[in-house]
């Protein structure tokens, strides 16, 4: 065990009916970044929850600084120096920066009952000075950007003198610039001797930041590889248990002739003079950094945000003031946050598929359930939704299958223009492939697709044409045969 700060041996964990982990290994050296990867459901989170005391292991041993430990709650792990920064940041938005960092450890006056806010803020300031972070301890969390909130989390972890820091998808909500800042911090932490377990789905990041990569699949340990000498393709195939080809589309632009949607001079609070057109059977990719205004374009066209400008569908100018107008004009929108905006999680697959088309099934306001079941079954079979039956509640489905339910909803509604906003967010690698194939077959059938994605390989893989945005404007248009990551990034960072 020489030199290792952490060693997890033969960890097993069973939940009622599911073997979540079996004999999983993990070791960590001081000052290294270990990437932990695996598809959703591979057991990464469960393993990390055991390490941080949120779950208890059924079998196995954890050695930390050559001593066996078994933390029973998060606080115990924190006090040992093991901290986790969750993907959904765990901060109290209505409390200040300093109040969040020292929650549960507030400096107190008499009887341990009265708060000493002055000392609290001084402690926070001293901490920021040590970490070279510029933050005001008195600012409320809700006023900070996600990147700064993350910094608060990191500062909080380091205030416990963290020796092991677990970061779960830390870059999911960050812009490229913020990611660079984060990586600077990670490098600084490494130099300070802090070890980092880094969970991410983004392969190119792992290459940049990690020293070694541990792969998990189906609750089992697969392998650990040194990053420097490893091909990412090899990692991906270990993850999914098969080779995956990442390719770029090169379509003939002359294939598409019929313009179905034309958008002219869209303007609102976020957007400046956005104009573009979408043709029948085409997949039009929208690339850009987070916050470039791509989602805002989708929301405007769908009637979710107000705007000025012209929208022409099938040659005639239409007025879209609210989502119901857009739906009636054959537009379907698949939000990046499907759990919040796309699905009724407690309702069944069948009910979710039919929700936008209920008028088809009603007679004098009474719903005829038998027809719904038949149609829902037809679409869920067509889209290969993996569910025991259409009576299953949607929240029990995996991310990829939930996404398919949302797609089925718009297909049943017979929407011709489909707007996909980050269609594969939170979906594991295998299921991503299926969603890609699905999008392509929809386009072949004559649906027109607007696809917003922050993952460039995904944009290149699917798009016939690519619109690039920055700061609420369209900064460029590329045909698939001319596009590559470099050209897209140049346009995505182009300023006016």
């Amino acid at each position: 065990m020489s030199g290792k700060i952490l060693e997890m041996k033969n960890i097993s964990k069973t939940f009622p009916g599911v073997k979540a982990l079996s004999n999983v290994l993990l070791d960590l050296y001081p000052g290294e970044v270990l990437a932990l990867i695996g598809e959703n459901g591979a057991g990464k989170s469960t393993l990390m929850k055991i390490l941080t005391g949120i779950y208890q292991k059924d079998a196995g041993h954890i050695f930390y600084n050559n001593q066996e430990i078994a933390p029973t709650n998060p606080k115990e792990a924190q006090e040992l120096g093991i901290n986790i920064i969750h993907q959904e940041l765990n901060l109290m938005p209505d409390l200040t920066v300093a109040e969040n960092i020292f929650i549960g450890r507030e400096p107190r006056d008499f009887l341990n009952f009265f708060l000493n806010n002055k000392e609290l803020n001084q402690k926070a300031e001293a901490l920021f000075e040590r970490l070279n972070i510029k933050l005001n301890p008195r600012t409320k969390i809700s006023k900070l950007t996600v990147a700064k909130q993350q910094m608060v989390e990191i500062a909080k972890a380091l205030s416990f003198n963290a020796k092991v820091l677990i970061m779960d998808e830390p870059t999911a909500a960050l812009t490229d610039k913020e990611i660079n800042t984060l990586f600077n911090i990670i490098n600084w932490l490494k130099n300070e001797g802090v070890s980092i377990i880094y969970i991410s789905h983004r392969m190119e990041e792992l290459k940049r930041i990690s020293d070694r990569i541990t792969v998990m699949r189906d609750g089992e340990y697969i392998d650990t590889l040194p990053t420097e000498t490893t091909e990412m393709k090899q990692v991906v195939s270990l993850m999914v248990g098969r080779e995956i080809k990442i390719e770029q589309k090169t379509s003939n632009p002359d294939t598409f002739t019929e313009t179905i949607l034309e958008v002219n001079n869209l303007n609102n609070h976020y957007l400046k003079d956005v104009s573009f057109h979408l043709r029948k059977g085409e997949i039009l990719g929208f690339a850009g950094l987070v916050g470039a205004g791509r989602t805002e374009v989708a929301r405007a066209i769908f009637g979710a945000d107000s705007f000025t400008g012209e929208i022409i569908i099938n040659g005639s100018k239409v007025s879209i003031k609210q989502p119901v107008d857009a739906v009636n004009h054959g537009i379907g929108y698949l939000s990046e946050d499907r759990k919040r905006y796309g699905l009724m999680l407690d309702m069944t697959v069948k009910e979710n598929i039919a929700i936008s088309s209920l008028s088809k099934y009603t007679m004098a306001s009474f719903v005829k359930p038998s027809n719904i079941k038949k149609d829902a079954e037809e679409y869920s079979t067509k889209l290969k939704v993996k569910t025991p039956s259409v009576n299953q509640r949607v929240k029990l489905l995996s991310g990829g299958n939930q996404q398919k339910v949302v797609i089925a909803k718009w297909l049943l509604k017979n929407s011709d223009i489909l707007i996909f906003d980050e269609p594969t967010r939170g979906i594991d690698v295998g299921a991503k492939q299926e969603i890609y194939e699905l999008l392509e077959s929809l386009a072949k059938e004559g649906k027109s697709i607007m696809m917003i994605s922050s993952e460039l390989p995904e944009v290149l893989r699917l798009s016939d044409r690519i619109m690039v945005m920055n700061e609420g404007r369209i900064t460029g248009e590329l045909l698939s045969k001319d596009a590559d990551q470099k050209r897209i990034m140049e346009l995505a960072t182009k300023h006016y």
Partner: protein
Amino acid sequence: MSVTLISTKTESNKKILSSTEALQQILAFASLIILIIFFSLASENFLSWSNIEGILLSTTVIGILALGTTFVIITGGIDLSIGTGMTLTSVMTGVFIVFLGLPVIMGIIGGILMGALIGFISGFSVSVLKIPPFIATLAMMMIAEGLSLVISGASPIYFSDVEGFNLIALGSISPVLSIPNAVLIFFLMVIIGWILLSKTIVGRYTFSIGSNEEATRLSGINVKKWKMIIYTIAGCFTGVAGVIMASRLNSAQPSLGMGYELEAIAAVVIGGTSLSGGKGSLIGTLIGALIMSVLTNGLRIMSIPQEWQTVVIGLVILLAVYFDMLRKKGE
């Protein structure tokens, strides 16, 4: 090695923050002043000392209930049991003093402890049994209502033979203006509540739980324990309100109290506390309670029928919450 991080505009942030929060307080306070000016122009009696005293006195019971329930609402919960809970504490105070012949001070403490017990049971149901606050306290509301009737035999308990009992609320120890004790107790409760909420660990966790309960739990805070403490504190406020109610009426009225909880919640909401938790203030609640009683009193002075007064208060609640939402949108 040093790292350059995104710099924060520290100073300007601080200014913006303090000004929006100040604005909220000023807005509520300004509406109260405008109401007062309006009614004093409409009726010359409105600003007479006896009328002001009447307004303050009528604010005390609802006001104290509202103060306590502000804590619960900031955690993101709700407490429907405070109205009939108050009735039960009145009745138990009567039982202790009139039926059992305990000294008045013991009766008062017993009444307040009764309130604390009701709050504790609600808190236990919510945090340990995980029953949603609306349901848990709805059940508690009915239990307290029923028990009040059972214990008192459905008839009022009179304190007529207990010398000085009605002076607890209606006497005056104030050297000037003979402000009724009930009003003084109300202001004392405002101060106690304000200290608890803004200066102590209880207050910090009240906001923290309301802001993000899961994050609070993962920060190693015993959320179950603190929720029970917070509901129990709210229960103590209910107990104080019950004692004052009994003293003012010089009797414990077992069928009075239902509906008080909604008026108290209305005062909290008008005062700018968010029903979704995490945000709120006791000064806001104080102003909210005053707005409600100034409205009732002013409309009565203007001879507007009781039924219409209720309609107006309903409209005020809608307006208050709507403006609060506009303000938050503007932030």
